[in-house]
């Protein structure tokens, strides 16, 4: 098929060693997919204009759901009719993004027949993002998808599709079962995920250890990070192998030829100074360890997290809009989360979300609400006692909002009594 639109600027993105999305989409355009040809045409126009060419929003969806589909229309449909409608479907990914090809092909096949043929593997939140459907295709796509066992993810003021790291499936550091937890939360909150009813979006992200490979601490309203309470497990033989230069430093991250200097690279870089090395034995004062993972990352064959595992739960992380970016704040320093026993977590989540749902303003994330009403108010709502682990440092201003019942005799006083003792 002849090339529909000339794309001299995009053609420049076919050069170079990194895989080219232009080359990929062009091939599909040349095979006759009109949406692909017109997407490239419109993108070329955006490159020329240095402005995007999508209209603002558009309310479309599938019956019974309030989210999962993002409406999108071209603002130059007469030039690019193949992308006149370019709606997105968010398809809930399997936890940690393993795929059986036979199952992934179910989605690819539907999308080939009924959609643009272009997709994101994956969107930032974690969903598979099918990019570019016409309105009349949305229902049939949904019907075919669900009949194969797939469902839509979240959008709008709803629970967003939870996501997690690779976890116990292929990582030795996973202190919690991230995939089971992610799947369980997703199933538990199906209604809240598909029918937006909250002040704004709410995200759960689950990492198996403090390395936090899904960046949960930066971007999830409820960040669940695996950790442990007991001692780091030491394999003395492997310590000797690192000392003797038999094993590569940092799990080979700097090349197999880079060896480890246990004193300089491990002990001296420990942020708490809780380790010692006498040339033969590595000792850890575990009571002073903050479980930062540095030593474990450096010598994965010699050190492992302990076995009394659970998670730290942090609340309130978000990107800048509206009040500025926030990292998650520690709320539950440690919670046991044995496989299948997630009652404590669900109770906590319910209390936290109820408080936010009740007090949050339109488009206010839970982290912003906590800023507005105070961390203490939130701790009271989720029934957690204050703990030094909640803070970086105690307050340095003297402006404490004492409540009347905290002060003997309350706030009601008689000025006459005062004046009896103190002249005006």
């Amino acid at each position: 098929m002849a090339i529909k639109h000339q794309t001299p600027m995009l053609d420049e993105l076919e050069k170079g060693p990194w895989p080219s999305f232009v080359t990929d989409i062009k091939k599909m355009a040349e095979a006759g997919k009109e949406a692909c040809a017109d997407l490239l045409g419109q993108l070329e126009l955006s490159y020329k204009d240095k402005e995007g060419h999508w209209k603002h929003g558009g309310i479309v969806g599938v019956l019974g759901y309030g989210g999962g589909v993002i409406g999108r229309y071209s603002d130059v449909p007469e030039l690019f009719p193949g992308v006149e409608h370019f709606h997105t479907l968010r398809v809930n990914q399997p936890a940690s993004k393993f795929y059986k090809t036979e199952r992934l092909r179910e989605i690819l096949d539907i999308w080939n027949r009924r959609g643009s043929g272009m997709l994101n593997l994956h969107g930032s939140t974690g969903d598979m993002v099918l990019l570019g459907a016409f309105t009349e295709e949305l229902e049939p796509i949904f019907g075919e998808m669900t009949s194969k066992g797939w469902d839509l993810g979240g959008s709008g003021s709803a629970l967003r599709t939870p996501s997690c790291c690779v976890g116990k499936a292929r990582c030795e550091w996973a202190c919690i079962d991230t995939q089971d937890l992610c799947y369980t939360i997703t199933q538990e909150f199906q209604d809240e995920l598909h029918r937006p009813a909250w002040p704004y979006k709410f995200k759960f992200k689950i990492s198996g250890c403090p390395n936090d490979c899904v960046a949960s601490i930066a971007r999830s309203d409820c960040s669940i990070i695996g950790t442990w309470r007991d001692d780091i497990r030491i394999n003395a033989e492997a310590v000797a192998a690192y000392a003797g230069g038999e094993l590569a430093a940092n799990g080979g991250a700097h090349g197999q030829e880079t060896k480890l200097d246990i004193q300089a690279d491990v002990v001296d870089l420990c942020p708490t100074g809780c380790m010692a090395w006498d040339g033969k034995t590595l000792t850890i004062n575990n009571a002073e360890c903050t479980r930062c993972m540095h030593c474990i990352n450096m010598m994965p064959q010699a050190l492992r997290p302990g076995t009394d595992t659970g998670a730290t739960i942090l609340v309130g992380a978000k990107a800048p809009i509206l009040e500025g970016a926030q990292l998650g704040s520690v709320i539950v320093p440690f919670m046991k989360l044995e496989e299948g026993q997630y009652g404590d977590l669900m109770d906590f989540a319910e209390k936290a979300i109820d408080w936010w749902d009740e007090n949050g303003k339109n488009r206010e994330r839970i982290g912003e609400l906590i800023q507005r009403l105070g961390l203490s108010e939130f701790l009271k709502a989720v029934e957690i006692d204050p703990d030094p682990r909640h803070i970086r440092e105690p307050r340095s201003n003297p402006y404490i909002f004492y409540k009347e019942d905290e002060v003997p005799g309350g706030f009601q006083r008689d000025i006459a009594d005062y004046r009896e003792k103190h002249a005006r």
Partner: protein
Amino acid sequence: MQDRITDIGPPKYDEMWPDVIKDNYGKWLYHDILEPGVLLHVSETGTKLYTVRIPGTRLMTTDQAEEYCKIADEFCDGYFRFTTRNNIEFMVTDESKLEALKKALADKGNMPLGGTGAGVTNIVHTQGWVHCHTPAIDASGVVKAVMDDLFEYWGSHKLPAQVRISLACCLNMCGAVHCSDIAILGVHRKPPVIEHSHLDKMCEIPTTIAACPTAAIKPSKEEVDGEVYKSVTVNADRCMFCGNCYTMCPAMPLADADGDGIALWVGGKVSNTRSMPKFSKLAVPFIPNEPPRWPTTVKIIRQIVEAYAADANRYERVGEWAERIGWERFFEKTGLEFSHHHIDDYRFAATTWRNSTQFKW
């Protein structure tokens, strides 16, 4: 609506696992990166699992996804996975299959091994001009141009530590790039242009006013071609171009060819390793949009990466390096210009000013 299937959620994770993952779930002992792009995981069962990592473009066609499926069918019993950072991983247990897999990927030409260890892995990013309605920049094109340039760091382990680069095409930050070693952020610099003749029909005025974090929007009556319309005005001095008004009100677009471009941020991290997680800080307030290959952005990112590579201690992330040497040194060593825009004047600004006599010349 009868017989309609809803609320079933995603397929259960273990339906997507090959036997080797089922058999070794929770039993992994350690890992070792054998070479850039090749990981070995060893289980307490004695199983050795080799993972080969290649980059995905995030935006791809079903044909491209099918290519990956075919490789997985041929070498990995029909299973593979994607990482959080848009990489693709193929897993095999047999060393001879590993070599055949590596060769098959090399023959493809667009499936280079890498993205592991002390290098630059794939850039997480947003939609840009490909799909979004509020972007200040494109996403996929910038990523392609930057990764072409940094390609030597994709397939090598020669940096002091891993460098995580992320891109978001506007301040909404779908990609949550605010804790990255290097963040590429699309920014607007002109207040919204207001379509007075349509605003009241397209937008709810009170919600639009409430959407502004700096209270820069107020209601007004505006005359257009002799007709008076209920609309809003924006106090340009209070506008920091977040675009939140446009999110609420389509009659207030911000996009502008001259106003829009890229800001670069450095030194964020999400891991708790050694130092606590931290935000990225402003390095370059504005670089114009330069499609198709954004040469100034590409050049400055390389400048930052090279200064870091030359000066940081091994294991030190970009942010840890900048904090150790001091920000005055960071600007000196990277050759970047320091301006008024680098000094915070938003909420909590004072917490970022220097309250000490300690500094370097």
